[in-house]
């Protein structure tokens, strides 16, 4: 075993770093949870795409560089270390794209992926419903057969970035008589500005419209926007949740960069006599390193053909990064003392900025992408082999 990167890997890192140094905006873009910020982030996606940095791991024909998972990890480390903008395209890139690579048609890939890579079409995930959160298979919104396609009706909710996005992908009940709840579901893509769609933004904890609910009234979707076979939606969608929880949604670079910023904050503001806080800073740094090495090990397994990690291992990942993220931000707020209470837009907010929004967002981590309670059950049952509980 070794942890050394090859010369080619290091050369890739340098190339990424140089590009970012020349392109990352000097002043942070406005929050992407605002109309203005959304537009600025779209421009940024376009700039990334122009030099093929928006989707490095995709095949070149769709705008990527065919980079290995190792290079993707390196790219992400450099991206976050450079303080580059948050990715407004992330739902599409991390959730829809892998699904289309696995289950889509060539026509769908050609139509959807390049526009996604360029930030021209921003995607929202429309899975949850008011009564169907953890128990997603209980969803009731429907897809009814129509000439040449389907008619969608029902209500979706908590759809991230749907307030400003262009299109959505989601699950609908196409066969109410299928017997089991997770049978008879169909996975479809639909435009958010289509006739019959009403989008109502919902303010998250800090009031920003970070998600929205969608009311669908007989929204027509052509057959070419069905992903995979009708009725097979559950199986197809579940192949995406692994991506959501696993490596790709939250790369270690995000946390190593945040841990570096936290360390700087400690050196600047920390009271050396406050050993309890010092220990928490150290724990966050250690946690980020553990997550990074764990991810490198997982990537090695893929690269050296030792079998991809079991799907349930993605649950370990999800629990780890979401709890690390909160600990990291709580520690930062404690370090900031009386300034930790300020919102990011307060005139006195520390110039390092972003800790308040980062904290608020971290609190959602144990809820989305499958709550941590559900993930712990999955770990206990599938990785430890404990008896299945009532569910």
């Amino acid at each position: 075993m070794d942890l050394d990167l090859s010369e080619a890997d290091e050369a890739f890192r340098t190339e990424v770093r140089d590009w970012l140094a020349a392109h990352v905006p000097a002043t942070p873009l406005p929050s992407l949870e605002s109309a203005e910020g959304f537009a600025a982030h779209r421009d940024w996606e376009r700039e990334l795409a122009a030099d093929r940095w928006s989707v490095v791991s995709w095949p070149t024909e769709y705008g990527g560089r065919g980079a290995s998972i190792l290079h993707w990890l390196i790219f992400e480390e450099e991206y976050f270390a450079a303080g580059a903008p948050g990715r407004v395209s992330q739902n599409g890139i991390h959730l829809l794209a892998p699904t289309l690579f696995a289950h889509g048609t060539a026509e769908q890939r050609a139509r959807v992926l390049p526009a996604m890579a360029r930030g021209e079409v921003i995607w929202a995930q429309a899975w949850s419903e008011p009564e169907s959160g953890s128990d997603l298979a209980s969803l009731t919104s429907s897809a009814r057969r129509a000439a040449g396609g389907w008619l969608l009706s029902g209500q979706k909710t908590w759809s991230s970035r749907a307030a400003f996005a262009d299109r959505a992908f989601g699950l609908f009940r196409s066969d109410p008589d299928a017997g089991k709840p997770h049978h008879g579901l169909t996975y479809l893509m639909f435009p958010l500005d289509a006739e019959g769609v009403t989008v109502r933004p919902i303010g998250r904890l800090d009031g920003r419209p970070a998600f929205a609910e969608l009311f669908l009234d007989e929204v027509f979707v052509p057959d070419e926007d069905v992903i995979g076979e009708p009725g097979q939606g559950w199986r197809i969608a579940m192949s995406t949740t692994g991506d959501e929880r696993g490596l790709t949604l939250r790369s270690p670079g995000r946390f190593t960069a945040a841990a570096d910023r936290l360390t700087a904050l400690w050196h600047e503001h920390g009271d050396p006599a406050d050993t309890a806080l010092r220990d928490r800073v150290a724990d966050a740094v250690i946690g980020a390193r553990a997550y990074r090495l764990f991810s490198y090990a997982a990537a090695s397994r893929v690269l050296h053909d030792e079998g991809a990690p079991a799907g349930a291992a993605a649950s370990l990942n999800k629990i780890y990064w979401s709890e690390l993220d909160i600990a990291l931000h709580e520690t930062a707020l404690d370090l900031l003392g009386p300034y930790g209470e300020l919102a990011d837009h307060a005139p006195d907010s520390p110039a390092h900025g972003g800790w308040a929004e980062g904290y608020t967002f971290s609190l959602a981590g144990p809820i989305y992408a499958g709550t941590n309670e559900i993930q712990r059950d999955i770990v206990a049952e599938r990785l430890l082999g404990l008896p299945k509980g009532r569910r």
Partner: protein
Amino acid sequence: MRFLLDAEQREFARSLDGLLTSCDTPAAIRAWAAGDHAPGRALWARLAEAGVFALAVPERYGGFGPLPLDLSVAFAQVGRHAVPGPLVETVAAAALLDRLGDADAAGAHLPGIASGTTVASLCLTALGPYALDADAADTVLVVDGDTLRVGARPGPVQPSADPGRRLSRPSGGTVLAEGPAVAAAAAHAAGLAALATSAQSLGVGRALLARTVEYVKRRTQFGVPVGSFQAVKHRLADTLLALEFAEPLVHGAALALAAGSPDADRDVAAAKVTAGEAAYRAARTALQLHGAVGYTDELDLSLWIRKARPLRDAWGTPAACRARVLAA
């Protein structure tokens, strides 16, 4: 010994609870956050009428205090209903002016505080640069070292993570007193503020727990109430445990303050850190167990969730409190 609230104190708590339940405090908080103080001031008047502020003011100035234990009882209800405004700061200002021993100053401010016509804010710069809700206050006091200034002007509002808290840096004002008496009075005021804040935290935590327990009984997933899952039950049981063990520390600290005990500072610090952390844990649990709906600002729950952390840190951070516990 009888380490229990007496019947009168329990009745006081019940009546405040009833009063505040009928007041639509969430609407008052949302208005307060938007800079409209009228509903908050109306609430303030009702609390004054119920005697809450008089508990911090001695009889000769129109009050019937100082009664730290009764204040704790009242502030637990203030927290339970997330009442907006500088309530803690106002009772702390009363304690400061009372302890200062300047009859003119006390006579000028304390009757108004007791009757509810004077809303005060107080900034001890040793604890932080901000005064809470100074833009809504009738008088702003600042203690800088051993100088006390009154009539300070509020600076521009610095939005807090909790929109119901409006912070600003006060400036100016006239020097009212200087010297060691100021420092001693300020320390006394900080103790009462920390006590009231811990009681308020306790109330915030209790409200979060109660709402979450109701929610997990109603919310069904997988065909059963989510409250029937052990992971959910255990988190709520732990929340209760933390609050139940914080409460005696708060009551004990109130008694120590009332008795002028030499251990009062230690006891208040212990209460503050424990109640603050218990309420913050309760907020994290409430958010987690409400799932995504708890993460929306439309649900009133968010008003309590966002209070918990600033209260944990106000008037003594957990680290500062722990240090005081050991320094005693």
